[in-house]
């Protein structure tokens, strides 16, 4: 008789740490693929699993191996049909029969494996330089609240469902024929009545029979419990995501010719981060994309990031469009309104005044938060970094910044600059949570 060991209950994921080592090793390449996916994908899709191609660099395991295109070999193959010795067979191009090395690499190419949400976020956060606490917050899934969901055969004693338990017990008692108390009582009464009369043999036998039946019923009662462990049912609870209020996020972007590929990429990361933050806090997050040149228009995400449009720059049109949409679809009483605006700062000089008016007069009252990022050239960053001088829009917004605490503005030249825009937002988070 062999020794049997049941290993099925052993901890799984024995390879998990090897997987992590592998990901760490291929980090640079994975980061590149995740970033490409963020650039090409939708904002809301960052926060999930991603399939990425198998990295190539840094993970080769070299060994000495024969070059397929050298020397003379012999292959022994089965299944000859018509060949005779000396026959010549043309080679079917490179990587054909026999030489296995060239074929290998291509087949590895279409390997895509899935990164978990956590791993994706880790890679996405990498050069945003988020503080650890914030990262942790963003990686957390919504808070859950237990919700009743049927019954379970196991659970904690506090969750016993008495009604269901008793119903089971009742059914079982009927099925197994547990004697009722009334039956016993009836026999006891009969016995008492018989014992009161003067005894004779027939009577004695009758009493004996009744006693026996009484004992039998009593034993049976004892054996078939009133409530058996198998009857017990517990209330089952399913963790449900905590219902939160809804939020809408307005993405405003200047798409005039001055916004190039780099600017749009930075803007996108900025929007992604805000979106991640919002999805953590609100059960439902809508995104509205408004792009503008000298006129503004609500568009879908694809158009927002990839279609170019020529024209001048009139920022106020975007703010007006946003206001119109809020009035139409997102009443401030039901929605938490967040807005993020990205621009290179160009604007018609006269229009900036109008922007101040719109923001101060209407929008800031409606918005939870309004973040403005100005994307500048890396070379300019040290010139503009600290001064108040700047583009016309920057100067105009500076006045709004002073008046409204829920307004944030920042110049961004590199991914690492994005987070400080949100600092206020993240810092306020715990306080907001309590009130929510």
């Amino acid at each position, binding site marked *: 008789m062999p020794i049997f060991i049941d290993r099925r209950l052993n901890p*799984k994921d024995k390879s998990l740490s090897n997987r992590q080592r592998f990901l760490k090793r291929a980090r640079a390449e994975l980061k590149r693929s995740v970033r490409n996916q963020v650039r090409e994908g939708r904002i809301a899709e960052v926060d999930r699993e991603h399939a990425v191609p198998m990295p190539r660099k840094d993970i080769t395991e070299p060994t*000495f191996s*024969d070059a397929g295109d050298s020397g003379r*070999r*012999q292959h022994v*193959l*089965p299944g000859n049909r018509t060949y005779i010795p000396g026959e010549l067979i043309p080679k079917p191009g490179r990587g054909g029969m026999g030489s296995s090395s060239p074929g290998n690499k291509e087949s590895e190419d279409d390997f895509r494996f899935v990164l978990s949400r956590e791993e994706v976020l880790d890679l996405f956060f990498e050069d945003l330089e988020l503080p650890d606490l914030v990262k942790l917050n963003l990686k957390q899934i919504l808070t859950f609240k237990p919700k009743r969901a049927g019954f379970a055969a196991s659970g904690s004693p506090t969750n016993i469902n008495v009604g269901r338990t008793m119903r089971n017990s009742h059914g079982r008692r009927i099925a197994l024929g547990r004697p009722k108390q009334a039956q016993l009582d009836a026999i006891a009464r009969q016995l008492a009545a018989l014992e009161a009369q003067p005894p004779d043999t027939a009577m004695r036998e009758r009493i004996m029979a009744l006693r026996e039946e009484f004992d039998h019923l009593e034993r049976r009662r004892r054996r078939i419990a009133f409530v058996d462990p198998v009857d017990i049912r517990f209330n089952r609870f399913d963790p449900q995501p905590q219902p939160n209020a809804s939020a809408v996020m307005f993405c405003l972007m200047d798409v005039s010719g001055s916004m190039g590929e780099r600017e749009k990429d930075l803007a996108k990361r900025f929007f992604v981060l805000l979106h991640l933050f919002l999805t953590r806090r609100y059960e439902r997050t809508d995104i509205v994309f408004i792009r503008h040149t000298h006129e503004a228009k609500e568009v879908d995400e694809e158009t927002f990031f990839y279609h170019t449009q020529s024209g001048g720059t009139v920022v106020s049109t975007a703010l007006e469009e946003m206001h119109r949409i809020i009035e139409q679809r997102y009443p401030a009483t039901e929605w938490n309104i967040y807005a993020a605006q990205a621009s290179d700062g160009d604007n018609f000089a006269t229009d900036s005044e109008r922007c101040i008016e719109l923001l101060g007069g209407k929008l800031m009252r409606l918005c939870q938060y309004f973040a403005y990022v100005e994307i500048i050239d890396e070379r300019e960053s040290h010139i503009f970094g600290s001064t108040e001088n700047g583009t016309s829009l920057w100067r105009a917004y500076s006045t709004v910044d002073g008046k409204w605490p829920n307004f944030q503005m920042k110049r961004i030249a590199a991914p690492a600059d994005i987070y400080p825009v949100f600092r206020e937002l993240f810092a306020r988070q715990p306080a907001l949570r309590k009130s929510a």
Partner: protein
Amino acid sequence: MTAQAQKSELLFSGADWDFKKLSRVYDEIEAIGVEELRLDIYPVQMEVISSEQMLDAYSSVGMPLMYQHWSFGKHFLYNELLYRKGRRGLAYELVINSNPCIVYLMEENTMALQALVTAHAALGHNHFFKNNHLFRQWTDAGGILSYLEFAKGYISRCEERHGLAAVEAILDSAHALMEQGVFRYHRPPKPSSEQQREGIRERLEYEERFYNDLWRTLPSSQEADKAGALEPGMEERKKSLNLPEENLLYFLEKNSLVLEPWQREIVRIVRVIAQYFYPQRQTQVMNEGCATFVHYTLMNTLFDRGRISEGAMLEILRNHSNVIFQPSFDDPRFSGINPYALGLDMMQDIQRISTEPTAEDRDWFPDIAGRGDWLDTLLDAWANHRDESFIRQYLSPTLIRKWRFFVLGDGADKPHYEVASIHDERGYKRIRAALAQSYDWGASRPDIQVVDVALLGDRHLRLQHLVKNGITLENDSRDATLRHIRNLWGYEVSLAAIDAETGATLSERWTKDC
């Protein structure tokens, strides 16, 4: 009534398995195996695992315990992908050459499959591991698990002490040389350090006692003079370092100038594991053939005795024929010769030759034809052969015809393959030789040896690649591997390609150039 009696004869019915049934089936199979096939096995330990655990085991080279390394994570991802996409099924079992012999059974298997797997792994492979001379010589079945446990613990302690990156660097480099980390031709030198010291002391004493200054005055021969002038002390150095050395890992472990003791130990661990797997690489056809032959024989015996039902037998046969399926070379499913099929066919062929030989068989195998003692022949083959010698000895013309083998000559510089031999009178021996040659694992891998070290100069390590049939090394992987050797050696390394036939140096590659 008869139906019931028959039913009680069956070892199991239905698809579900439980431990009682497994145990009953194992006892029965073992009894038959030992009785009828005279198998000699290690005690068996059966472990039931889930498919995920099977994937885990795949990625750590099939061992239940393994140290941690990113490459295992990579293999895990590949295997998982292949499995999830349905491109590859998982093995029904995994068996480890250890004492007790560990057999993994997948929980998804039906009872019939578990019986098949038990016969295949717990009897077939087990017998082969215990009796084949390669395994007996090169592996320590009793000690491997505790060695792996030691290795795992040792490496994780090193990681704690020296950092993940440092350990990883050593492991990467050592892994690159795993194929060059085995002794192919001789046993590793094994005197304990005490014996060694004792030996050296004795030798010195002896030399002192018999020292005679007169010998110094003898004129040296011309030969020695030439060699000495060319490179002084080369012969001595080679002798003291045991050069040439084919086991690069062994050489580096013992002689590297930069490795610290813990690094040497890690190199040693990788080398020991490489050596442990070396017999398996050389006996694929035999090992699988032996296991397949055993399960086929045992299952049929069980069925003949009425111990398993027809339904179960059908399932077993279906799986059996899947396992030994061999598509021909022009089939899209062809991916080389199936070792299960070739092994089983050869062993059944030995049975046939032994019991009902043809005239041809009598010519080819006068020793075994018609003697009826096929089991003795098989037991002897299982114990004393490896793939290469087994095929060279026992591949019969009948089988060559059945498989319709042919040999294809492939010169890299020619636009055509040339059919060299087919299954005819002139071809049998050549096909047999070529097939045997292709299973000689040692000969089919690049032959790379340490030939010299400039210990007094720049400590430059010279390697030599013996180029056979003009087959050179693939450039990128060669350079990358050389860089790994340089990491372990610490100084410049060069690899010279020497033509095996002419002895001419074809090329030389230095690490400083790559």
